[in-house]
Structure formats: C-alpha cells, structure tokens
C-alpha cells in the first residue's frame, strides 16, 4: 500500500512538472528552482506535511521534498535554538544529500566522459 501511494503521489508531482515544461516556456532549471521553493513555502504553510505523511517517498524523493526537508529542519531548529537555528536548521537537515551530491557528482564527472549524442 505504501508503494502504491508513493507511486501515485510521486508520479503526480512529476506530471505537474511535465505540464509546466510543455505548457509554458519554463525550462527544466526553472521547474527545479520552482519546485524546491514551492516545497519550502508549502511546508511553512503546513500543506506539505500531510502530503508527505500520505505519500511517503512519493513526496520526499521529488524536489519539493528537498524543500520540505529544508523548511522542516529550519522550523525545528528555530524552535530549539532561536534565530541561529533559522540559519543552521535547513542546511543541517539536508547536509547529507547535498554533500553526497557534491562528492558523487564530482567523482562521476571525473571518472566518466560524456557519451556522444546520437
């Protein structure tokens, strides 16, 4: 059941992205930025939390989930540490993923060469 919900929620979020790319002049980069920011805002408004609880990885794996983790971390840390937490919370909550992206991204870019486009 968890898997079906993850599939549907994750799939629908991607469909929204696809419609934005096909229907408007937004590039993939615009969609990425828009989705992360939307994730942060929706989490702050308390809208994304129930989506994440329902969809599981379907809501946390797409990029709005990155925004969700950022905002959740920022709010949690602000509660515990005040203003300082506002600065550290978001980065802290996502540090693992971002550091992995930097390290693995660098390694893979160095190891592999781009395939010739067919």
């Amino acid at each position: 059941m968890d898997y079906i919900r993850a599939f549907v929620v994750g799939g629908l979020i991607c469909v929204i992205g696809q419609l934005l790319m096909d229907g408007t002049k937004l590039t993939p980069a615009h969609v990425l930025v828009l989705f992360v920011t939307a994730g942060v805002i929706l989490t702050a408004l308390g809208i994304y939390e129930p989506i994440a609880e329902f969809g599981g990885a379907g809501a946390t794996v797409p990029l709005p989930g990155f925004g969700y983790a950022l905002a959740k971390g920022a709010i949690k840390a602000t509660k515990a540490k005040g203003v300082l937490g506002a600065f550290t919370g978001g980065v802290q909550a996502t540090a693992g993923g971002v550091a992995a992206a930097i390290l693995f991204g660098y390694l893979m870019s160095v190891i592999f060469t781009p395939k010739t486009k067919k």
Partner: protein
Amino acid sequence: MQNKKLQSINKQQEYNEYVQQKIPKPTYLKNCLWAFVVGGLICVFGQFIGSIFKNMGLDQDEVATATAIVLVFLGAFLTGLGVYDQLGKRAGAGSIVPITGFANSIVSPAMEFKREGYIFGVAAKMFVLAGPVLVYGFGSSVIVGLLYYFLGK
C-alpha cells in the same frame, strides 16, 4: 524584379510551413504518462530503499538522509554511464523532478566541461543548475525560519 520578389515570398512561406511541420508538437498525454510512470517508479524505489534503512533501525530523519544519499549516488552514476540521459529523453520531468534528477543536473554539465579543467570546468559547472536550486532552497528556508521566529511566537 517583381517575379523574384514573389518567388522569395513564396519560398519564405514554404519554409515557414516546413518549419511548422518540423517543430515537435508537445504530445501532452504521452509525455505526462511517461513522466508519471518513471517519476512514480523512482519514488517507489526510494520507498523501498527507505524501508530497508528503517528496518536497520534508523530514525525518520536518518532514513530520509540515507535514502537521499543512495538515490543521489545512483543518479550520478547512471548519468556517468549515459543511461540517465537516455531515460530523460522519454521521461522528461519524470527523470528531472526526483532527487536523482538533481544529481543528473550536477554531473551532466560537469562532464561536458571537463576539458576546461578541474576548477573552472568540472567544479564550477557542477553548479550551473544545482547552484540556483541551492540558492533558492537554502535562502527560502532561512527566511521561513526567521519568519517563524518573529511571527510564530
């Protein structure tokens, strides 16, 4: 003279029609279906990895972090192999929106610009797309934290 002008107008018209024919019309339904299935499957895979970490006894935040790390690794690795971009041609947003697409957006330009060196080529170009995501993501999260601090009490 008049004739030549007419001819060129004709040619232009023909050319425009030709271009119109060649412009790929977005096939909304097909694209959305691909995005839905591929994006959904990546999330199912994320759920599967998460459940493994959960069974290992990690708490909720740790599960999210560990899952993100694994998916980012796979996204970067498959991009290096050239598999991810092949998938992306069909899947569109289905491969861009999940966090594996974030890894893809780092590796793709970095690989492409390797010849410009390891500082201004690889390391700098890694963030052509990922940079804006981090700027807006981190930036807005700090603002949310500050708003919560000043308004939430």
